């Protein structure tokens, strides 16, 4: 039963629960009209303490497509935060008005903290600094399910900024709970997967490399990520690492015919635009999956998943 629960990190839900959200997403994709009013009369608080286009739009689109409505802010300077209000007080106040809340915040652990103040209102973590981004994980899983037929038994290459990439941390920890997953972590030495994530994996189930060319032919899924300027203190270091990996047609020739390329977007230079037309490139389809999985998640947490 997911009604009333928080989603702070993917580990909050059992794999069976995640599968049930994906099943509902599949139903919504098949019959969107049937779900277009299930959230009528419900309010979603959209609390974005740092800039986001994609995630915020997909949540807001998801709620609107379920027939619900939205309140919130996308700039903390326009909220009580600018008056020095604590997060706890903000959430306790918003709970008086809203049925469910989505929060993005630059500080790690914020969503977990906020969930301790919300007594009845489900909290969804839409990204907390470099820490977790569970709805991106659900998006990724739905994409894998849709384009690879399920989430078990894959060789998954994860490439780019593995140190600060919150989407990657969440995805790796969750895929690790499926059967038969092998990871190949591809990153510059400075942006390696952190120790606290590696410690959670069986050492036989992953390998680390700096060379994408050498391993691309082994992969079923290639998950590319952006080197994020906002996570670097030194601009010089960012400029040195930002174009470390560029996936282009030449590299794609070495990949399996049924490998899929994923990316949480926004992309900068890490995937050349010439790859976009390759049928294996599913990153824009992935963005669409993001809206459907968020519709399913909202419906589940509000307990309104039955077609009206």
């Amino acid at each position: 039963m997911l009604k009333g629960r928080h989603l702070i990190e993917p580990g909050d839900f059992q794999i069976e629960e995640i599968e049930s959200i994906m099943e509902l997403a599949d139903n919504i994709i098949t019959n969107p009209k049937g779900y277009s009013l299930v959230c009528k009369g419900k309010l979603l608080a959209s609390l974005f303490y740092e800039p986001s286009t994609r995630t915020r739009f997909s949540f807001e689109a998801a709620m609107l497509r379920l027939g619900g409505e939205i309140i919130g802010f996308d700039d903390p300077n326009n909220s009580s935060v600018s008056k020095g209000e604590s997060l706890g007080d903000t959430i306790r106040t918003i709970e008086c008005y809203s049925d469910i809340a989505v929060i993005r915040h630059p500080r790690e652990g914020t969503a977990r903290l906020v969930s301790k103040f919300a007594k009845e209102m489900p909290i969804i973590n839409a990204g907390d600094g470099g820490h977790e981004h569970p709805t991106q994980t659900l998006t990724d899983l739905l994409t894998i399910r849709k384009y690879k037929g399920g989430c078990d038994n894959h060789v998954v290459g994860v490439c780019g900024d593995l140190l600060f990439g919150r989407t990657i941390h969440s995805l790796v920890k969750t895929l690790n709970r499926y059967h038969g997953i092998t990871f190949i972590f591809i990153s510059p030495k400075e942006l390696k997967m952190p120790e606290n994530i590696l410690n959670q994996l069986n050492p036989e189930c992953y390998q680390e490399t700096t060379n994408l060319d050498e391993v691309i032919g082994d992969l079923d899924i290639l998950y590319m990520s952006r080197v994020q300027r906002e996570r670097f203190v030194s601009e010089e270091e960012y400029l040195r690492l930002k174009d470390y990996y560029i996936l282009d047609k030449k590299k794609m020739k070495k990949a399996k015919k049924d490998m899929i390329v994923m990316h949480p977007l926004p992309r900068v230079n890490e995937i050349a635009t010439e790859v976009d037309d390759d049928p294996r490139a599913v990153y824009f389809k992935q963005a669409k999956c993001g809206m459907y999985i968020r519709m399913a998640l909202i419906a589940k947490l509000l307990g309104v998943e039955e077609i009206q």
Partner: protein
Amino acid sequence: MINVSKLKKGIIIDHIEAGHGFEIYKELHLNDIDDVVVLLKNIPSKKMKQKDLIKIETDIQIDMNVLGLIDPNVTINFVKDGEMYKKITLNLPKVVEGIMKCKNPRCITQHEDVKEIKFFLVNEEKKQYRCEYCDAYTTFMEEE
């Protein structure tokens, strides 16, 4: 050599690494209790060369959880009617609450007033704990 009279009741915390006695005194909030407390520093010891020792003449229960973090090698002797009736050694606590602070500068606990943060033991050898909020690892001595 200074002589301190034999304890009739209470707790003796022995084999404290020299120099850690005052830290334990502070962490156990011994300043807040009205009973007799004696802190001995740099006592000659055959086993440790030098050690600290704390005697507390009290009936109240003291949370020893924190001791495992500061100095897991200490011995705790419980005394009743002038006789030692129980002796325990310590392990690192699996969960610590309200003692440590997260060292991750990006953790929300560094920016909001968060009390009683829980930490979960992840590596006994390295004394590493995981923050309940940001999952970053913090070593007890590192965070001081």
